[in-house]
Structure formats: structure tokens, C-alpha cells
């Protein structure tokens, strides 16, 4: 992996303190109570003191693939996660994901492609240059964040594995290891582990589909799906499967986890769509996080999460209220 290790005291440009943290510090200097409160957040303190944890990555910024909306601060992105392998509370992944070992990491490539086999993560990533893309992430639970990912285009990786003409879908699996993942030991979980996701081949080869290995210029923390995760920004967050150990090219459409659990609530496509409500709540709007208490930060949800220009053609002629 093109990871440049550097001593903990050395700052890289990607380590620049996020604006909100910086402003908090100024307010703190001014002695306001509110910022003193913000500083007691452990994540925020860590970001201030030692910079963002993780190994620094060398990458190229991709403004053409990035929004200029205000990024969610690092502590928000890394303390508020849905990663049920570590528990269903939003704080559970940050609390318990350290139990997962991500180095070494192997990805099994299977199915309808020429280059099947078990790949060390480094080998899978080696030929590709890392990019930074700042994407919106819209959760099916009606909240969203703006996140600066580092990674490689999914299309590049898949192409290098040489899928055959029979490859109509690509399927992904998260690590299944109850010893490391306490959520998988729960008696009352309705998820049939491992967590499974999939994309139609043309969706996977779309220029937006991304394999992230980093966040804010550093390697991913475990709770965000280290060491490698999918990011498909025009779909609800649960499609962006974390900690991938298996990639399988398939002729038939794979069954995906949420579709297996509640097919009337979660479909295979799961495109962000304000016109199709979740049966239990509205998808017309979303709360952009972090959200203040007195200003809930509601914004209108945009179809395909605002990426319609790049992806709307993939669904031409499809009834998206049926194929949700």
C-alpha cells in the first residue's frame, strides 16, 4: 500500500484542523462556555492535539468529483456510525471496532472473472493512484454528512480483475468474525451474517463508485469500515458496505442483507429518492449532520442524492417506486 509512515508529530497538509474545530478553539480562547463544552468531546480533543489518527495517504484531490459543501468534522464522521457488526447504537462502532484487526487483510475475488483468487489488500490496490473525493452520504434514516474519502475508483479495480461477459452483477461481503465483532454474537440480531451487498455491473462501473481506504487524508478508522469499503454516493448509506473481504462477479442478481431482512422496506437498488418514502418515515428531507439542537438542519433530499447527472441514465425506463 502506498502508505507513507511519518512520526506522530509531523503534520501533513491533509491534517489541517477542520474549520469548526479551529473556530471552537478561538471561542475557547475567548472563554465562552459553549466552546468549552465542545472541547470536552473526546474526539474533538484528539483531533486538536495529535491531528487525525491513522496513517497518512498520498492522494490526488479530485475537485470534479467533490462537493464544496461544508464537510462534517472528523469526530462526527467517526463517532456516529451504523456498523451493526459492532452493535446497533450509533456510538457502538467507535467503542468496539478496535477489536477488529485489519492488517493483514485479504480479499477473496470470485466468480465470473479471469483473475480470481485471494488478494492481499496491498496487491489489490497497488496499481492504482489514490484520489480524494468529497461526497455526500445520505443514510436511509434521513440524515446525511459530507465526507472527504480517499480511495480508488471501483471501476479501475474491477476492470483489473477482468470480469467475463457473464458478469452482470458484483457482490460484496463484510468480514464475518464474531470473535472480533461483538454485534455478530448478539442473540436477537435478525441479520444473517455476513453482511452482503451488491451492484449491477453498470452501477459498479460508474465513475462515481468508489472504494475508500481513507478519510480526511488518513487510513480509515475501523468504525468507518477499515481497511476497505464501498462508497456509492447516490444510494442510501447501507449500500456502501464496510470492511470488504469478498468480491464476487455474478450472472444472477445477488441477495443483499437489508433486502433479505425487510424487502418491503429496503430494495436492491436503494437509490436516494425523495419521491419514495420508507414505509416508516418520510424521505423528502434529511438532517445534515452535525446538527445543532435548536436548528435541526433540515434540507431537502435530492433525487440520486444530487448525482443524477452521473447516474440517472442507469435507471432509464425503470419504475423507481417499484425498484426502490
Amino acid at each position, binding site marked *: 500500500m502506498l502508505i507513507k509512515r511519518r512520526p506522530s508529530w509531523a503534520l501533513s497538509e491533509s491534517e489541517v484542523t477542520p474549520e469548526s474545530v479551529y473556530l471552537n478553539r478561538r471561542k475557547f480562547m475567548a472563554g465562552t462556555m459553549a466552546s468549552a463544552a465542545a472541547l470536552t468531546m473526546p474526539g474533538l480533543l484528539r483531533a486538536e492535539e495529535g491531528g487525525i489518527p491513522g496513517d497518512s495517504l498520498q492522494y490526488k484531490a479530485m475537485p470534479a468529483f467533490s462537493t464544496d459543501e461544508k464537510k462534517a468534522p472528523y469526530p462526527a464522521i467517526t463517532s456516529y456510525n451504523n456498523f451493526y457488526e459492532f452493535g446497533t447504537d450509533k456510538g457502538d462502532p467507535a467503542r468496539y471496532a478496535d477489536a477488529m484487526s485489519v492488517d493483514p487483510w485479504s480479499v477473496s475475488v470470485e466468480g465470473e472473472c479471469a483473475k480470481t483468487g485471494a488478494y492481499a489488500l496491498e496487491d489489490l490496490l497497488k496499481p492504482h493512484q489514490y484520489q480524494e473525493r468529497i461526497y455526500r452520504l445520505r443514510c436511509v434514516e434521513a440524515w446525511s454528512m459530507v465526507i472527504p474519502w480517499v480511495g480508488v475508483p471501483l471501476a479501475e479495480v474491477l476492470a483489473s480483475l477482468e470480469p467475463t461477459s457473464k458478469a452482470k452483477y458484483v457482490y460484496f461481503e463484510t468480514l464475518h468474525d464474531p470473535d472480533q465483532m461483538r454485534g455478530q454474537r448478539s442473540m436477537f440480531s435478525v441479520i444473517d451474517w455476513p453482511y452482503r451487498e451488491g451492484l449491477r455491473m453498470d452501477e459498479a462501473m460508474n465513475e462515481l463508485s468508489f472504494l475508500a481506504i481513507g478519510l480526511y487524508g488518513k487510513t480509515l478508522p475501523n468504525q468507518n469500515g477499515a481497511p476497505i469499503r464501498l462508497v456509492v454516493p447516490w444510494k442510501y448509506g447501507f449500500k456502501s458496505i464496510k470492511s470488504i473481504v469478498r468480491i464476487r462477479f455474478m450472472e444472477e442478481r445477488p441477495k443483499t442483507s437489508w433486502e433479505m431482512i425487510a424487502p418491503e422496506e429496503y430494495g436492491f437498488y436503494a437509490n436516494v429518492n425523495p419521491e419514495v418514502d420508507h414505509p416508516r418515515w418520510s424521505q*423528502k428531507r434529511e438532517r445534515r449532520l452535525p*446538527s445543532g439542537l435548536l436548528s435541526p438542519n433540515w434540507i431537502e433530499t435530492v433525487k440520486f442524492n444530487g448525482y443524477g447527472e452521473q447516474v440517472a441514465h442507469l435507471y432509464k425506463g425503470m419504475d423507481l417506486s417499484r425498484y426502490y
Partner: protein
Amino acid sequence: MASKASRQFPYTPVKALVFLTCLIPLALIGWGIQSGNLGPDPGQTITEALGIAAFQFLLITLLISPLRKITGWAGWLRFRRMLGLYAFFYAALHVLAFLQFILGWFDLWATFTKRPYIIAGGLAFLLMAPLAATSTRGMMKRMGRGWKPLHRLIYSSALLAWVHFLWQARSDVTEMMIYGLVLAVLLGARVYWSGFSTLIPLRRA
């Protein structure tokens, strides 16, 4: 005999202590707001905390009668109204927090007509309202024999609150199962002691 026991009991200071103890969930939320450690979505965190507090107080309220039965001490009943009112208090704050922080007063009609878990929660809350309104000594006197059957609505309210909780589960229902078990024991105890008729509200005994 019961009245003698309650006369000897240092009733007022203990009641004040219980009153203050019941404010702990609210104090924790206040502390969380003040110290900014409610995470990136404080509104959701607060709404959930208030809902859980309301449900827990419902369960504690339901614990009073069995406690009296088991210990034989009627003094427990002295705390029941306060605990029930706290359940209503937290439920009301929960509803307000939901409207303000989660909904932003948007899409109200669809939310309260189309979303089953909201309907269950809304009903649980509505059923508590007449109980809170008729909780005073004066109302008890005025209603006479009708008071008790009306207040059995708490059974329906607690069941609806549990359903409201369960229907929000996305995958792991461990927590809901634990609460469900507690509720089942509390309601089961009533069935065991008095037969099924006690669970039916508004039936003249």
C-alpha cells in the same frame, strides 16, 4: 394496618428524595447539552433518551402494585401517582422533542396517519393523558368506582409503548426483548393474582 405503617414512615423527605431522583434522566440530558457530548445528532439522542425514560417510568409505575402485594406494605402506593406523572412528563417531552428535533414540525399529517410506529407511540401517549388529568385526589373522589378501571389504561399504554419501541428496531431487538420480558412479568403478575379481567380497562369491577 397499612395506614399505621404509613404514619410511622418519614413520608415527606423520602417523597422529596424520590421526586428529585426521578429528575435524573432530565438532568443527564441537560448535562449532555451543556457539555456538548450528545454527538453529531443531539436532537435524536435527546428524543430517544426521553422516550426510554418515559417507558421506564411506565414500567416502574407498574411495579408498585406487585411490590405492595409481595411486601405487604401499602406505603408503596404513596409513590405511584408521582411515578405515573413522571412517565407522562417524560412522554410529553419526548413527543415535543420528536416534533421539534426530528420532524421539525414538517409532514405532520403523513407522519401521524401513515407511520405505524408513530401511531402506536401517539396512542400510548394519548391514553396516558386522561390518567394524568384524573390523577388528583379530588378526581379520584369524584370518579369513585370508575377511577380504577380507567387507570387500567396504563396496561394498554405500556403495551403500545413497547410496540412503538419494537417497530423502530432495524435489526437487533435484544433491548426490546429485555423490556418486553419485564413488561410481560409485570402484566403476567396481575393475571396470576387476579385473573384476566383485571387487564381489561373500563370494566366495572
